[in-house]
């Protein structure tokens, strides 16, 4: 693994106060989501007399249409949203890295066909097809993860491909090839570790996209299904009460915005840190 690059990431992360803020905020969200069970309220316990309360001392985010504590529900929703975002990213990274390295490493007709395929996927109305596939298949978290992953890996594949192209001419890769190491080992042992930072950056930005996708699909009712709920699916039910209890719409949306924002900021800062001629490329 490239130590120097990693140290660069760490330095950039702590030097850039926005990146640090985003990072800390995400960690806080993650911990809050993981420890949601500590909340004194049961996220599924209905209490009709308490329904649609505005935020107050007892219910920080108020209550929903069934009188459930909204803060607790938002925390549990965070679990689903973050998990779907993360898992979709994994799917996208696995596909994207495989396609990208294979395409870049072998070149020739393999590269041609794969990149052609990427192009096709990028020029179809993917959002509509995602909606459609979710409706056709059994909607649910697994379906959602696979579908989002499958429609968002193209950008990663392109970046990974171009990195692979530049790295495969390096001596250690040439040496590995010349010493008879199999292509599979060369790719996994020599190429992927060297482009890991790039993959991580692309992955970070991909989580942002995935969370947005998930929330849109769930908002339309074609993503996360009952009894699970994500921020997106909470908004689906909240929109009916926007007149009388707009806080139900406010909180989950804000959290989506903040989470996505954090991932975007983080990804961007890291990307700038890696680009050789970054923001401070001023000449003398």
């Amino acid at each position, binding site marked *: 693994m490239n130590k120097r690059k990693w140290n660069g990431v760490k330095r950039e992360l702590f030097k850039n106060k926005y990146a640090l803020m985003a990072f800390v905020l995400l960690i806080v969200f993650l911990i809050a989501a993981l420890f949601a069970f500590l909340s004194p309220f049961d996220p599924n316990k209905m209490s009709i007399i308490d329904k649609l309360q505005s935020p107050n001392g007892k219910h920080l985010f108020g209550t929903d249409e069934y009188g459930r504590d909204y803060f607790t529900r938002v925390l549990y929703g965070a679990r689903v949203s973050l998990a779907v975002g993360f898992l979709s990213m994994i799917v996208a990274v696995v596909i994207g890295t495989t396609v990208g390295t294979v395409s870049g490493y072998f070149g020739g007709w393999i590269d041609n066909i794969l990149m052609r395929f990427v192009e096709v996927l990028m*020029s179809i*109305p993917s*959002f509509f097809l995602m909606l459609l596939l979710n409706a056709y298949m059994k909607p649910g978290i697994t379906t959602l993860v696979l579908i989002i992953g499958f429609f968002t890996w193209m950008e990663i594949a392109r970046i990974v491909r171009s990195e692979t192209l530049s790295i495969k001419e390096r001596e250690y890769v040439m040496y590995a090839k010349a010493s008879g190491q199999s292509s599979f080992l060369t790719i996994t042992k020599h190429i992927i570790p060297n482009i890991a930072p790039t993959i991580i950056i692309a992955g970070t930005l991909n989580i942002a996209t995935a969370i*947005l996708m998930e929330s849109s699909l769930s908002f339309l*009712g074609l993503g996360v299904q009952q009894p699970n709920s994500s921020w997106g699916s909470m908004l689906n039910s909240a929109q009916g009460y*926007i007149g009388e209890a707009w806080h139900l719409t406010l909180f989950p949306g804000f959290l989506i*915005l903040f989470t*996505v924002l954090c991932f*975007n900021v983080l990804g961007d800062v890291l990307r700038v840190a890696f680009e050789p001629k970054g923001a401070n490329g001023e000449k003398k």
Partner: protein
Amino acid sequence: MKKVILKRFLNAIPLLFIISIIAFLLIKLAPGDPIQSFVTPDMNPDDVERMRKSLGLDQPIYMQYILWLQNILTGNFGYSIITKRPVLDMIIERIPATLGLMGASLLLSLIIAIPLGMITAVKKNTIFDRIANFFAYIGISIPGFWFGLMLIYVFSLQLGLLPSMGMRTVGTDSIWDVMKHGILPATVLAFQNISVYMRYIRSSTIRQLDEDYVQIQYAYGASKRHVLFNHVLRNVLLPVITIIGLSIPNLVGGAFITETVFSWPGLGLLGVTSIFSFDYPVIMAITLFSSVMLILGNLIADILYSVVDPRIRLRG
């Protein structure tokens, strides 16, 4: 230049072919008898059988595809399972609403993003730049539907300034009324693009300002304003056309969700409702139409770019 355009056209053909296969499979794999989508209420069982024959549904699958393609190319998209109306009619009557919305949002994006991008570039690293950049980050991170809901809450429910749904007030038929209905959805659809364009224009302006020709312009006594508007602007605007082409997927994808939030009677809303009602012929048609829209949009952007950029125009 003709060569460039021809090449782009040829590139689009295999893409259209693949998409047509996807659309065809969509219909083939749909549960139920595909003949349903061609049955009109006034047909008796004999008619249906004849229809099946005439559609070639008893033939091998590749023949079915060819027949299907023939139908599509001659404008026969079948009938909606739900409304029993010809799908093509349903699509055509929705196109103006969607194109209008997209056009308005594109226009809005450009009007805001171009000056903003250039100003932030000139005022790099000032407070103004930072604030604009922050908003750009919000723009690419905000869920469009939620932004729409918030706008509805503020401008329709609280302030009562703008309508929250539909395209017309029943009984009125003025263009002003349509525009009023369109403000919120167009804003929502534009927000993300504004951010993307602004960031792009900013960085491209910064790059241009570093170019030698800018220095030379100053050295020949040109004012900052002159350099910016008469020299940099041109160089910045050319690639914006490509960016517009690249953002068409966003626009198409965004239209589905924005139209749903605002009940805007366009193709997007039709698409989403047809998914919920499993109206396969309509779904198939929407898939085809939005793909064609995407491909055409990119094609037009490519061609426009090669027309306006002298470096490309004079080469081919």
